[in-house]
């Protein structure tokens, strides 16, 4: 099928099978390898993208479902010359180790901050609970989201 959708702000036209997994479409066909795959079954969150602003699992989406919609991947988050503040905060707070969960974590955090600009540690943990990380113990990921939100350790 010919698929039309908006990808990282750009009108995109691509020919693909309608039942192609979106993670494969993005990684293999469109080269957006910041979208990771680690389980293929919706259990880890590494493949998260924003679909119309909502974090979704690209391993559980089919290409046809994108028609007419807006997709944001980690590559499109900064949208310019400088890193997005969340990316900067993840780097600064030490939230990145192997980094394989990081794109999904950043996007899940981005969606959280869009609806809750001053999240507590518990709210952050809840928001990223579907994104598995095997390296960090999550502590510094939560720190990073707080840092991006302009919150210090002492703010509740």
């Amino acid at each position, binding site marked *: 099928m010919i698929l039309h959708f908006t990808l990282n702000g750009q009108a995109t036209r691509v020919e693909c099978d309608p039942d192609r997994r979106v993670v494969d479409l993005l*990684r*293999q066909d469109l*080269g*957006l*390898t*910041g*979208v*990771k*795959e*680690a*389980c*293929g*079954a919706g*259990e*880890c969150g*590494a493949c998260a993208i924003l679909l119309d602003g909502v974090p979704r699992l690209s391993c559980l989406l089919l290409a046809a479902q994108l028609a007419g919609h807006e997709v944001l*991947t*980690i*590559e499109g*988050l*900064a949208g310019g*010359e*400088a*890193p997005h503040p*969340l*990316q*900067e905060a*993840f*780097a*600064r*707070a*030490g*939230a*990145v*180790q*192997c*980094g*394989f*969960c*990081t*794109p999904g974590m*950043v996007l899940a955090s981005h969606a959280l901050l869009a609806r809750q600009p001053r999240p507590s540690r518990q709210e*952050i*943990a*809840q928001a*990223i*609970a*579907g*994104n*598995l*990380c*095997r*390296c*960090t*113990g*999550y*502590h*510094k*990921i*939560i720190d990073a989201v707080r840092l991006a939100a302009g919150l210090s350790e002492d703010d509740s």
Partner: protein
Amino acid sequence: MTWPRPHLQLGLPPRPDALDKASGREKYACDFYPPGLLWAGVKRAGVPHARLRGLNLAAARALPGVTAVLAAADVPGVNRQGVVQKDQPVLVDDKVRYSGDALALVVASDQATLARALALIETDLEPLAPVLDPEEALLPGAPLVHPERPQGNLLLEGRVTTGQGAAALEGCAVVVEASFDLPRQEHAYLETENGWAQMGQDGRLTMVASTQTPFRDRLEVAEVLGLEPGRLRMVAPYCGGAFGGKDGVTVQSLLGLAALHAGGRPVKMWLSREESILASSKRHPARLRYRLGSDDQGRLQALEARIIYDTGPYDHLGGAVLTLGLEHAAGPYRIPHVDLHGQAVYTNNPIGGAFRGFGVPQVAAAMEQTMDLLATRLGLDPLELRRQNALKRGDVNPVGVTLAGSTGLAQCLEAVAGHRQWKEAPAWRAAAPAGQRRGVGLAAVLHGMGYGPVIPDVANAKVELTGEGVFRVYCGVVDMGQGNAGTFLQLAGLVLGQEAEGLELVLPDTDRTLPSGSSSASRTTYTFANALLPAAQALKERLLARAADALFATPAEMALVPGAVRHRPSGRTLPLAQLAKMLSPEERTATHRYRAPVVPERPSADPALQLHGLPHGVFSYAVHLARVEVDELTGLARVTGYLVAADCGQVLNPQVWEQQMQGGVAQGLGYALMEELPAPAGQPQHTDLATYLIPTALDLPPIECLAVPSWEESGPLGLKGCGEIGIDGPLPAVGNALAQALGRHLPQAPFTPERVLMALQEDGKGAGS
């Protein structure tokens, strides 16, 4: 798009790799899809023990889009691989020894065709009785995993005795005894095993793989393929996690074989999560029996430990894992009489291999819970008991090695003793709400560094001033996520006086970087930085001298500054780019080889134990504290607070150090609370991340880390390794906290709600009874 490069100051964030990873730009091995890509995959046995009578590959070969279907006879070199003993077939030729064994390899034009072709392969397997219990495997008449081995199913047996050994227990005022059963743990790195490879027109095979060991892989794959190692180039990008699971060949031999049959096209192989769980190595399940004796004051006198590790069908690194366990079995204490006995046993279960901790978490679980049993028996405070027996510098450790280097356990104990989480523990416990029990548990642990006395623990560093005047650091050892590559860049910058703009990094590549061993064994930064610092220093001295010559000055008058060499008295500068043009490529490059020191003691005369790493001389130390809350209605145990105080020598970068502590603790808490991969009938019971559970963000407490720095003379800038000490303590700390809450230790981990609730009910204390 160019983004500003982060500044690079040793000790300060951010890690230089962090922003590329957070932006999705970093290319892991799995992120390459070169044009013309073929896909490779294998048919796995699915049964734990069987004779391979035949394979029918005709239908798979006939499928359009299939490039090649290969079996054992197609392996051109030696069809056996392994780090220590080559006992694992690349493709099964005689019999299946575990359900993840590979039978046939398919190369196809796309993933869908690959899947169809694999499904078309018919296997003719004659089932054999499997051996699944390591103790039964040692009984006469047990089915043999490798019938040709004279030692039967015993991979390695080791014994270390000191003083009067176990006989000294007779004279102890108090003896406690306990048994422990520890689970198989899955690494669950997020990036599953993968790579891509291509045979070039020049007859050289290039392979990019997610691996901890590119140089060793090259030798192994070359042997399998019957190629000279020089015809292979292995490239190792940043790993999406590894934790020991990529120490040794995973897909590499298969991928190399596929590339030989791909007509020069690139071939990719990437295990699904399900296949990764089925086929990959795991932390060894263990059974341990401990008897620990002390005098009536709590001075440890004697320990007897009996240790059995289920190593699965292949050696992998099982012998080395057992040996490190044996060496650490008595914990960080002075014990004059020990009898430590361990066996690693072949079974038809999943492969036991390297996993962060490398045999130590199991023995630490046993020793530290036994210590609490002893403290309870003696009526002593558990921290006091540990304080009293803690190894200090100059002591002889339980396996007979003099601790000549930094030994900071006592300081770690003091740090915990003075910390709020310990001091407030009694009040916190007493404040447990109705229906909840609370406990606070400790564990003291140590972790040796490096390969031991026989296998050279060597790194070769290389630093180059490029023709453009930038310093290039050739990182010979993989960064699997722990940040060592960035640390190397920062160290080079420190010596060479450069900022980020003046430095670049080459990740491990057998054509470009120099062999520096594995990213493992808490040795990565210790060993490589010990090579890197002198290499950078040598280059610096050469550049200062050559610049001085050019400016008619003396080297002492010169300084390396960002981008230039400056003549300090006059302020004249010679840009590095200009200096580089005055030098030959050889002159612009410095290398240094470092081999870690070995200790002279030999706790065992057994050459096999020495080969497998006994003993070590440099250890990191830590004390772990866990606060645990137990729900009486469900048995759910939650860790609500955690503290680790660790002596890892000097801390070069506090944030990276904390990352290692928190990450190790997180995996250790998974091991304590929820992670286990049983294999009834030799089949992993959990097949994916929906059923094999690792902690989510809601399962882990804040993890407080206290650096208790010492100065390790042998370490680069005084540091010791910090990659594993974090995972050794959580299980016993949680176990001891639970024991305090429940009034008894649980013999079997992980401490699932069911096991906890049953313990509550057996005591007749459960709220629901």
